[in-house]
């Protein structure tokens, strides 16, 4: 279940606090309900990393999702995502650590993102850094495979 507004703001502050302790600069986008950071990746590239509240786990713990956009699919039917490419993404998922590829709705179309979920209350700074950089790296790897540094 997704958080109500007070809960949303509370978790966004928690994310900002954890990022600060991890030495990661970012900012809260209150309208979008997310915390946004920038990550430098190999070869002078960069990747936007978004952290958002993701409700509760089965045992009632607060969860956050760290994600980074990798490949925009502007068409409503995601036509560019062929069966071959979709299978390739699933195979890549098995080899990734602390990240996975998925598909989220974006405007009229979709975006392939790399993402990871974490419980926020017990998270330590090193875990947060590791998951955030793994997500950024996974998104950037896919982006490089597809084309220039678009996102």
């Amino acid at each position, binding site marked *: *279940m997704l*958080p*109500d507004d*007070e*809960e949303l703001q*509370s978790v966004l502050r*928690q994310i*900002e*606090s*954890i*990022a*600060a*302790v*991890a*030495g*990661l*600069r970012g900012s809260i986008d209150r309208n979008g309900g997310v915390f946004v950071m920038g990550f430098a990746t190999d070869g002078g590239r960069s990747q936007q990393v978004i952290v958002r509240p993701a*409700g*509760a786990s089965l045992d*009632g713990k*607060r969860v956050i999702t760290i994600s980074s956009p990798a490949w925009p699919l502007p068409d409503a039917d995601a036509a560019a995502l062929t069966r071959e490419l979709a299978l390739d993404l699933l195979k890549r998922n098995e080899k990734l650590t602390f990240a996975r590829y998925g598909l989220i709705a974006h405007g009229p179309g979709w975006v392939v993102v790399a993402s990871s979920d974490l419980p*926020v*209350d*017990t*998270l*330590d*700074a*090193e875990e*947060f850094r590791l998951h955030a950089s793994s997500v950024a790296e996974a998104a950037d790897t896919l982006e490089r495979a597809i084309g220039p540094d678009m996102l």
Partner: protein
Amino acid sequence: MRLADRDAWRFPPDRDLAARLRASPAVQRRIASTVAGSGPRTSRSAMLASAVMVDPAVLPHLARAIAGLRDQLPGIPDLELFVYNDADLNGFVTPGQSRTIVALSSATVNHLDAEELAYVLGHELGHAAYGHLDIPAGVLAADRTLPIGDAARVRSWQRAMEISADRTGLVACGSLSAAARALFKVASGIVATSVVASPQLFAGQWQRLADEVIAAGDRDFHHISHPFPPLRMRAMLLFQEAIDAGDPQRLSVADKAIAAMLGMMEPSDSGEPIADLRLRAFFFWGGLYLALEDGAVALCENQRLAEIAPDGTDVAAAVAAAHAQPETCLERFAEAFRGRRRRFSALEIHRIVYGLLDIARTDGRVSAGEIARLERLAEVMGVPPQGCALVAAQFAKERSDAA
């Protein structure tokens, strides 16, 4: 003290959290669906079917006890008292459709004396008198679809309401010793008539529990509906001392101390960092290290440090020793960090840094020298200098927004 004056000494967080829950749309919806369901209507029939209703002809001493309390607490819908067969010491109160039902286990009736029973009955009736039955806390706590913030507030409220109910129990029986015996018997299961439960000794167990919780770094108590029994005893002791002193300010101080103790059962980032008893050693030694940055501890800083010092700390001696060797503060801070058995979460570390900034600002400003010392303290916890700067920027912004 009279039960009729109970609103004057109701535990403030009980009242405040109940108000917040009543104002929550999600909670209102669930209350409406619970009332529409079968709960209140079946409570009385279940009791009539399986338990014994207390009647002057059947259990005269209990009937007298409940009648006496009913007279002191007008306004509670028709009271009925039942005794059910159970070997555990327990009791509960529940709303019927037009009655209030109080039930005691047979073990409770068999093993508690008149004063102890008065405490238990007073406690249960306290729940009814304070309107605790109007919000079905047990149902809400079990509801996984309730927003997390509301779910946490329900648990916090459950614990706070026990403090209020303990007070009515204490006033009802009129004896701290009787309340201690009753609580001890329920907590331990030991029902021998030779039980002598000293309120002070029982309450003293709280400090040992607190020290253990701090050392272990346990943070998994927020799902528990009742405060730890030693905490409840300590809370009753503080309440009795405040009432005996006849000073409303003393009760306010006691309530603040009790709220801080209950804070040890809250999630790691709940409430103001400085009020977190679990982190006092860090705030004291780290705060002293920061205060000595300019070579002297100002009066306002000294007062602040005295307020947050861990129990048993000789503040004057610690300040004097630290004047001579300020680096010992850093060593004590590091000892406290390494001494914790469970690793610190990022949110806990943030609370420590944020709280230290609050202490540094006691004299109205955070100097560059204090920031440099804060970075050394943060380094002990694995926080890089840029992390310290980010938390300081967050602190400055939030203080500015709040002003």
